[in-house]
Every structure is written in structure tokens, then in C-alpha cells.
């Protein structure tokens, strides 16, 4: 009988092991794998910023001498400094924001630093390689100038309370993220838009949880 018990226990473990699977899932689903910055945080932050940028009256148009009939704001997206303790690629947030702003048709987007590097190497190739028809060589000096620059900071506050009698053996971890972005008029250095998005995530682990 002892052998039967052992066999049944082994079958149980085998069944547990057999449950592992890989599958495709919706990238827009809420993700709570752990407390660290995740895809839902990125999407929520970008969404809030896009909605605010699109509905801001101060960004409906920006006129100055030399600008043609198109009065849309030409925006350059600068850096979002990661001031959290985690490694977070904040360019992913600005990429999502730029994509949505461009698709909205309400903004013009000046090339990013990565874009400028790519443009520079392509123009140099056209001018210096001798492989491109001289009549079709593109020149520097015709880029649009950005009206405004967007930049900001991502910050976090992390707290943890260890298990104690007072907490009935529960461990609590809490993380608070705050993304602050601003858009500044290049000529006047005036902040013409500013927005914040806060996110709080907490995890409670029971007495025997890891």
C-alpha cells in the first residue's frame, strides 16, 4: 500500500508538471506578473499622456514667422529620465506617445536622435559614396525646426513591511510610480503643457508565500 501512495504522489507531481504551456496572448491584457514596471504600466502612462496632449487647448496650434499654412505643433520628444531603482527603457514610453500623436494627425513630429543619426549616415552615403545619381542626392538644411520639446522624469517610491505578529504574518510590498512630462516652447522656454500619471501596485504575501 505504501508503494501505491508513493505512486499516486508521483502521478500528482507529473500532472502538475504537465500543466506548463506556451501560447500567444493579447498584448493589451492587464499584466501582474510581479511588482516591477510592466507593459500595463507603460500603456497606462502613455495613454494618459496622449489623451492629455490631444485635448490640451495650448497645443492646438503654434504660429510664428516662417511657418507656413500648417500651424500644427512640431514636437521633438526628448528624454524621459529613469529615476527609479529599476532598469526601465523609457524610450518605449515616448515611442508609444509619438506613434499615437502622429496617428492623430494633430502633431508633426521632428526626427528623434536615433532618426538624426540614421539621416546623417544616409546623407553622407549619398554625398560621399559616389554610388548615387548626383541629381537625386538629398542635401542637409531643409529639416523642419521643432516648435517645442517634450521631456520628463519617471520616479518611484518603494516600501516593504516584513512579516510580523501585528501584520498576522503577512508581508506587504508597495511600489508607486510617477511619470511627469512637460512640453516647453523652444523660443520662449515657457512650459506650455504638463501632465502627471501615478500608478500604485502592492503585493501582500501570506505566512507561507514566497
Amino acid at each position, binding site marked *: 500500500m505504501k508503494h501505491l501512495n508513493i505512486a*499516486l504522489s508521483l502521478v500528482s507531481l507529473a500532472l502538475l508538471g504537465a500543466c506548463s504551456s506556451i501560447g500567444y496572448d493579447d498584448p493589451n491584457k*492587464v499584466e501582474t506578473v510581479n511588482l516591477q514596471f510592466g507593459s500595463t504600466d507603460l500603456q*497606462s502612462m502613455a495613454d494618459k499622456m496622449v489623451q492629455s496632449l490631444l485635448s490640451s487647448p495650448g497645443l492646438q496650434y503654434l504660429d510664428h514667422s516662417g511657418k507656413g499654412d500648417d500651424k500644427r505643433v512640431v514636437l521633438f520628444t526628448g528624454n524621459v529620465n529613469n529615476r527609479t531603482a529599476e532598469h526601465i527603457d523609457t524610450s518605449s514610453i515616448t515611442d*508609444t506617445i509619438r506613434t*499615437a500623436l502622429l496617428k492623430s494627425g494633430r502633431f508633426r513630429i521632428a526626427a528623434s536622435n536615433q532618426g538624426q543619426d540614421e539621416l546623417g549616415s544616409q546623407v553622407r552615403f549619398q554625398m560621399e559614396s559616389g554610388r548615387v545619381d548626383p541629381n537625386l542626392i538629398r542635401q542637409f538644411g531643409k529639416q523642419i525646426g521643432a516648435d517645442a520639446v517634450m521631456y520628463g522624469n519617471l520616479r518611484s517610491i518603494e516600501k516593504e513591511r516584513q512579516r510580523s505578529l501585528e501584520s498576522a504574518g503577512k508581508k506587504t510590498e508597495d511600489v508607486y510610480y510617477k511619470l511627469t512630462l512637460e512640453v516647453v516652447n523652444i523660443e520662449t522656454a515657457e512650459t506650455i503643457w504638463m501632465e502627471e500619471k501615478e500608478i500604485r501596485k502592492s503585493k501582500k504575501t501570506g505566512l507561507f508565500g514566497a
Partner: protein
Amino acid sequence: MESKSSHRGITFAALTAASLLCACASTPRGTYNSVSGREGGQVSKHTPNRELENSLEMRNIVQVRDNGLLVVQLELANRLDRALSFQWAVEWYDRAGLVIDYGPAHYSPERLSGRQTKTIKITSPSPAAESWKLQVGSRDEVR
């Protein structure tokens, strides 16, 4: 005596196996409820998930055009005495009814305490948006 103990052992092992299997099985997920509207038109609700409908009310819906963009505001009210977790997402459509693809159309997680209400305001991503659909469902998370 030994036989009794063996039976207990078998029962325990069988229950362990069953519980391990259950832990792996996907939990039943409810269908989504939705509320949709068209600028200047009526708002309609589709609530096949009665349990969710009885727990969460979507009310006081306002839709206006502001700065050329369609803005929708609605109040989410937890009808229960305990906390309620759910998620929502919105889709926007142009005049022809084609979906406007703008990027971050994701599900937002929400948690309302018992009887708590929350007003959400969503702005269309493009002036072309003329109608919308907000879907609300049980939390279905990537854990």
C-alpha cells in the same frame, strides 16, 4: 487498522492529485459587457454577463465634442459592499464604422471599494472619431 490507514493515504493522495489538477485548470472567465454610443445619438448597453452587470453599474454617460475631439465621460459604480476588480478598454470608430487604430488601446485595471464610484473621462485619439464602445470585463490578467 492498517487497511484504514492505507485508505486514508489513498484518499489523501487522490485529493492532492485532484487539487493539483484544479490549480492548473483555467478559471471560468465571464463575457464582456459593453456600452456604446454615437455622437448626438443614443447610448446602448449590451450586458450578457449578468453577474458583472449586477456588480458594476455604468451610468451618467456624457458625450461631447471638445476642441474637435469626441470626449466621453461615465461613472462606474460598484453595487457591492465589497471591493470589485475589473478591467475596461475603449475602441473608437470613424463615420463609416471603421475602428481607429492609434496605438495604446489597452485594458485598464480598476479596483473599486464597496459602493465606491469612479468617473472616467476618455478622449478620442482623432477628430475622425464619431462613435465609441467601452468594454468592461472581469480581470483576466497575465500573472
